[in-house]
């Protein structure tokens, strides 16, 4: 068993995919630096730096994928996907349907996401619910190195568009780039089990749409994704000391959603707490409630999400993003109420 950081695990899986399949190429801004190890191994034809022209190069990734390549296209931060949204919303997501199922767009859009380092509301969003809202797009958000590599391989092999989001509290190079900048004077709440961990010697795809159960408990079911899973696990430890036992589900993919696991685990406790770093309104947290209710499962329900534009100031941001205390408070409300 080897131990890799979250970022190394993704790169390891991409290395494997690129070595095995010459149609896998990477392009995006600053790729020769951000992916310089791949650039050195696979050369400038397969690892290309683009101009800052997201609308064009993400659109190009869609048609390149239709014409036989398997592009991994990078927009740095998911916030910047706004500039390229038409390519995803009206093209990548629609090709298969419009062509009567005859033409597919097997591309991966890779981006960093998430907050916790004081960079303001234009660089720290997660947006996975917003993206998953669009039929035809898959959205994956790993929380461990093993899932990061496995889901990246699955995303590359998938025959449709997949948005692959790596959280900056897990991917050390992004946190260094955006948050630390080589400073020793700033601290971040990095979940250790997410930042580094065991990975397989050879990567196998982690199936899209399959949640992982990270903890078992009889009193309530916490459903989360990304860094929220680690916050939920920390909260569950604290809750256990107060005699409240929580299950924690790591969705791993927002779309497709593992409805079977969600319903089974929710029915088991009858209490559901969603921990979602994405915006609260019209998003994943509401969708989860709908899925459970539509299945006829009566539940008590709470959610801990991001309710407004993420403030720049660290002390304000810390209150806005889902944190351990907010999760504990909501869980206690559920188990008492």
């Amino acid at each position, binding site marked *: 068993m080897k131990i890799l950081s979250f970022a190394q695990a993704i790169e390891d899986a991409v290395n494997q995919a690129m070595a095995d399949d010459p149609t896998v190429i990477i392009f995006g801004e600053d790729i020769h630096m951000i992916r310089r190890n791949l650039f050195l191994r696979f050369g400038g034809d397969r690892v290309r730096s*683009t101009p800052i022209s997201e609308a064009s190069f993400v659109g190009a990734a869609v048609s390149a994928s239709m014409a036989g390549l398997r592009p991994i296209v990078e927009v740095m931060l998911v916030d910047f996907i706004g500039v390229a949204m038409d390519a995803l919303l009206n093209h990548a997501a629609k090709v298969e349907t419009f062509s009567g199922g005859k033409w597919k767009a097997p591309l991966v859009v890779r981006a960093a996401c998430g907050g916790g*380092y004081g960079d*303001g509301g234009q660089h720290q969003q997660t947006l996975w619910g917003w993206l998953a809202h669009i039929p035809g797009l898959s959205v994956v958000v790993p929380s461990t190195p093993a899932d990061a590599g496995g889901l990246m391989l699955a995303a590359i092999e998938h025959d449709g568009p997949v948005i692959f989001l790596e959280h900056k509290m897990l991917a050390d190079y992004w946190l260094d780039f955006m948050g630390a900048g080589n400073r020793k004077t700033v601290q971040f709440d990095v979940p250790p089990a997410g930042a580094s961990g065991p990975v397989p010697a050879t990567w196998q795809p982690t199936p899209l749409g399959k949640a992982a159960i990270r903890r078992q408990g009889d009193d309530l079911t916490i459903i989360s994704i990304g860094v929220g899973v680690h916050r939920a696990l920390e909260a569950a430890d604290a809750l256990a000391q107060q005699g409240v036992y929580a299950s924690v589900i790591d969705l791993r993919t927002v779309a497709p959603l593992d409805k079977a696991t969600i319903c089974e685990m929710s029915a088991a406790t009858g209490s559901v707490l969603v921990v979602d770093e994405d915006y609260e309104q019209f998003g994943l947290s509401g969708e989860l409630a709908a899925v459970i209710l539509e299945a006829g499962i009566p539940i008590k329900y709470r959610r801990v999400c991001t309710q407004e534009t993420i403030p720049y100031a*660290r002390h304000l941001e810390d209150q806005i993003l889902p944190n351990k205390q907010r999760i504990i408070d909501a869980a206690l409300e559920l188990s008492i109420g």
Partner: protein
Amino acid sequence: MKPDLWQLYKQMLRSRLFEEAVKRLWEAGKISGEMHLGIGEEAIAAGVISHLVEGDALALDHRGTPPLLMRGVDPLSILRELLGYPDGLCGGMGGHMHLFSPAHLAASSGIVGASGPAAVGFAIAAQQLRPGTVSVAFFGEGAANQGMMMESMNLAAAWKLPLLFVCKDNQWSITTVSEETTAGDLISRARSFGMPAIELDGNDVEAVWNAAGQAIADARNGLGPSFLYAQCSRPEGHLLGDMLLRLAERPLSLEMGRVLRWQVNSFLRRKGAPIRARATSARTIAALMAKVRGSRSAVAPDPVARLHQSLSTEGQRMAELTGEVVGEIEQILESALIPA
């Protein structure tokens, strides 16, 4: 018309010292997140901003601090914003990439290219509501490759909007050499929209002042937009703590040793590109590091130092002005650190 070089120098020095203070606070961990400084762009900002009057609007990029300081936004409120205090310019909600001053019609954005459309909208409002006023877009040559920037140039020219596009060419799109991802040249690109485009040395504040004065006067008189293309430098990298800069300056440090080991391993791994392609990649990275080192060298152009040199024949006046600005910045710094 001749510019008041002393006044311009004062603005530039103030901005430089302010941002150097910001850098120290950031390094001390008192300012969070990324920090993109406008050090190296002071002559461009000063030469343009000094022509603006009440009612003119500013669309800024991620290096918005110098233009805002020069436009008259309270430096203390900017600094307290960067420190995340509730009495900062934006209540601690914005940070350095999202500075807004409605009183100055000045708005920033961290999305590359966003100042183009923003300036167009400000110019439409100027045309409709405040005839004779103008709007200015500041952006880099990297942003010139955004579709929205080219669309904005088209729109501004087609509608003859009172707008000045100010393209600050520091040669870098984050860590990509802009030349390598830019086809044609930006002057011809701007001219193809039918607007005047002026190329100048962005380290020469007098040249900027002259060109901007003419372009802004034209815009006020209903003659439509212009494009100012000014070369400048980026000595602090894309942002503080810039990885490329670290790699270039301390290639043999412990941290970089780890980075380099991965690179060497990747270079040597089986399966992949032919050796010639790999060597090209290695040369590309080495060339970037050399270019970065060049931009940090003692002979690299510095707009503040350049003007200082030409004004320092009047030693007494220079000493007084320097003392005044240093004192102001020290006072701001002292007040900024008082807890809310």
